[in-house]
């Protein structure tokens, strides 16, 4: 395995051996070994659920590894002490209202100088130098929320490095480019290279393969918790990476006679949102339509925008054959649209209320009696029926929703919308934070809803589940639909391939629109 750039005295800064992590019912990491040397930039790739984030969390100490694992931090070799691990997550952990100078200052321990006046001029000078060291021109006195996304990322990196007593540490960047575009990515890469040049090791997690190819000295690929490849630069091209990530196993697509497409229940033209450039969409009666794509592809905003819950807008909208104005949640519900958000705690349900109260919240009209009184008996009866139908465990409608497991919370959220008998059911990450057992139950409910005539839209980062349940899947990349697969040629690997896309297509603005449906999953990209 790859130690190609390590000289004898240049022992690795981080060495992981035999790392496994088992969650109840799931082996998230299986015997992973990995070394990071000084000056190396390592890209960690793998699709959703492959174990990347678990690996990062184990390194960060959030999860305890299974016994037997060995995680060692190298001596820096120059008697400067042990190498350290630094993490920069996607949200960067900066305080938006503070300036770059002040953000730099946050992590530093103040000691006796806590009450002394801050040496403003010296600090400003130092901050300027630090940032300039990464090839960026940043107004260090401006609040960081006023900076561009790339500049913020650079500030976060500079801050991490500012605290280092010696340069030989390991910096872990978790999807730093998900919210950046072309030029900004380049700026960030300049900074990352400088970090490595100074002797640090960098672990870089990204879904964008062109970036990986451009930046990484070595690519480490995880699949199903196993480390399946550790290849040095030059040992792979774009196609190889896609192959590694997606896996060979093209599970023979079930030969299901395509259901006769019913009439369209939802037709939208010109969907636009911060991450969606342009999208048209047609959802048919009885159809389960998937939307696939990596983080930042626009996939996350489709359902919310259609429901009128997001920042985006829709030019033309037709529900069940009737043209309507763009929706807001109230009108959407009245028109027969339901929306299951990806973030259950923030948007999906009122966690402090009981399962019963959550289920009936969107439609209380049928339960209203004289004087606005709620018919408690009718409500309990109806909710008991739903709890039974969606198999909520424990079957206690009077329990606060926050006390259920994730899977059962999601079943309650689903029941609350199925109760409305929606014509179009929009779902975002329907199985996020859901245990394996409840997952199957949720798929079954989705299938039932479709069988009952609803059009179901499932937006998910999990290609496996889309391949399993959908009749048709749209693949998004950089705000556009770049592919469409129907049941006959639908496969997890094909979706992953299409979502990762070609190296050129995702960087050049003009070349990305590719509305032509992909018939062959293998034919999606060909430009390595």
């Amino acid at each position, binding site marked *: 395995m790859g130690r190609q750039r390590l000289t004898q005295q240049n022992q690795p800064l981080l060495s992981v051996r035999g790392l496994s992590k088992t969650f*109840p019912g799931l082996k998230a990491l299986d015997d992973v070994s990995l070394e990071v040397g000084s000056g190396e930039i390592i890209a960690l790739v793998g699709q959703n659920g492959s174990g990347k984030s678990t690996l990062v969390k184990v390194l960060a100490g959030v999860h305890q590894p299974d016994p037997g694992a060995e995680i060692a931090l190298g001596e820096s070799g120059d008697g400067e002490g042990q190498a350290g691990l630094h993490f920069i997550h996607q949200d960067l952990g900066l305080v938006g209202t503070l300036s770059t100078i002040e953000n730099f200052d946050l992590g530093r321990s103040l000691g006796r100088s806590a009450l002394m006046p801050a040496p403003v001029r010296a600090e400003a000078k130092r901050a300027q130098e630090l940032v300039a060291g990464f090839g960026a021109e940043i107004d260090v006195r401006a609040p960081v929320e006023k900076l561009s996304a790339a500049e913020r990322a650079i500030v976060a990196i500079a801050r991490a490095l500012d605290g280092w007593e010696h340069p030989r540490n390991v910096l872990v960047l978790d999807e730093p480019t998900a919210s950046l575009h072309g030029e900004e990515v380049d700026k960030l890469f300049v900074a990352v290279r400088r970090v490595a040049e100074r002797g640090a090791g960098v672990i870089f997690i990204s879904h964008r393969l062109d970036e990986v190819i451009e930046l990484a000295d070595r690519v480490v690929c995880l699949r199903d918790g196993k480390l399946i490849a550790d290849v040095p630069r030059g040992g792979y091209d774009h196609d190889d990476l896609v192959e590694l990530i997606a896996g060979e196993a093209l599970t023979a697509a079930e030969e299901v006679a395509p259901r006769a497409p019913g009439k369209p229940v939802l037709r939208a033209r010109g969907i636009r949102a911060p991450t969606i450039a342009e999208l048209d969409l047609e959802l048919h009666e009885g159809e389960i339509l998937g939307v696939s794509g990596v983080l930042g592809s626009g996939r996350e905003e489709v359902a919310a925008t259609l*429901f009128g*819950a997001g920042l985006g807008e829709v030019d033309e909208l037709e529900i069940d054959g009737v043209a309507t104005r763009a929706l807001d*949640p*109230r009108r*959407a*519900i*009245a028109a027969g649209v339901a*929306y299951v*958000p990806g973030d259950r705690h*923030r*948007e*999906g*349900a*009122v*966690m*402090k*209320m009981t399962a019963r*109260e959550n289920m*009936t*919240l*969107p439609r*209380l*009209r049928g*339960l*209203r009696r004289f*004087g*606005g*009184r*709620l018919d*408690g008996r009718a409500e309990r009866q109806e909710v008991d029926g739903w709890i039974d139908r969606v198999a909520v465990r*424990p079957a*206690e409608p009077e*329990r*606060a929703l*926050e*006390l259920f*497991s994730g899977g059962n919370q999601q079943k309650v959220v689903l029941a*609350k919308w199925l109760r409305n008998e929606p014509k179009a059911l929009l779902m975002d990450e329907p199985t996020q934070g859901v245990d394996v057992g409840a997952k199957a139950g949720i798929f079954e409910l989705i299938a039932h809803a479709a069988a009952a005539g609803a059009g179901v839209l499932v937006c998910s980062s999990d290609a496996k589940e889309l391949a399993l349940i959908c009749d048709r899947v749209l693949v998004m990349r950089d705000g556009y639909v770049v592919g469409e697969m129907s049941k006959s040629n639908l496969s997890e690997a094909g979706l992953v391939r299409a979502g990762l896309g070609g190296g050129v297509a995702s960087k050049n603005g003009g070349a990305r629109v590719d509305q032509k449906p992909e018939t062959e999953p293998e034919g999606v990209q060909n430009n390595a």
Partner: protein
Amino acid sequence: MPERIARALSFRNISALYIFVVMFIVFSIWVPDTFLQWNTWKALFDSQAVTAILAIGLVISITAGAFDLAIGTELGFGAIVVAWFLVDKGVGLVPAIVFTLLAGGLVGLVNGLLVTKAKIDSFIATLGMSSVLLAAIAWVSSSQQILGVGSSFEDLGTAEIFGLTLPVFLMLAVGLVVWYVLEKTALGRRVYATGGNIEAARLAGVRVSAVIIGSLVSCGVIAVFAGMLETASIGSGDPTVGPSYLLPAFSAAFLGSTQFRGGRFNVWGTIVAVYVLATGVKGLQLAGAPIWIPNLFNGAALLLAVGLAKYEATATRAGAIRRLLRFDRNRPDGGRSAAEGAS
């Protein structure tokens, strides 16, 4: 269902009632001559009715997730405005009451618009409003008491039925209405949902802005109503009565939320809390405690109530997680019975 009864009678559910019993016994032994007098209790009921009405109004707004810090001055505003209408403007009894209630509703409406349309945090919006109202009170009254509101108006605060004054019964009536709306109607469900998670409520089709505005309007109307009763029972419009009601109302609403409904703001818990707090204060006063005792007692009760509620929430959650883990480890059968037994 003995389990249900046990839960209903548990200390956690009705701690205020147990505390009341303990206080009753202690003060009965400590100061039996004064504490066990009917007159003491009558005074207690009468004097706390206004606080209780105000706290009920506050329950509406906190349930919707809006903190009305102007509620004390809204009471003071009602107290002075009704006297101003009656005395300075010479308006008749019924119109004066109606106008005052409308003024209270208007104050609530402005609060609501500041929170929902101008997107000012409810703390800040109502804090600002509170200062504006103080100015209005001083302006209308020239910081002088307004005397001579008339005996027919005073009757509102002093007329007795079954040995208790009218405000006690009015308090129960307001409580009944608010309880019905909050807990028995579809509207109330939406108010709770808005306060519980405004984003989830909005996505479930609840008109959250309307709910917040409506709750602040009701809160304003009830607050000036309480203020009018205050004026009626002391017989004059006093420009200084408002602010001191703020803390007792908040203490009662938060302490009340720990009672009966497992952490939810609710009317009956709040009324019980008002009287339990007042009993404690009264007992200590009778036992010769210094004049600052009410402030200390109410403040400590507020901190204790909120602290307890937070602690309880984490404890329940931790318990549920523990049960889930046990559920995982055991076979489904044994795990399930453990989970059910513990819940």
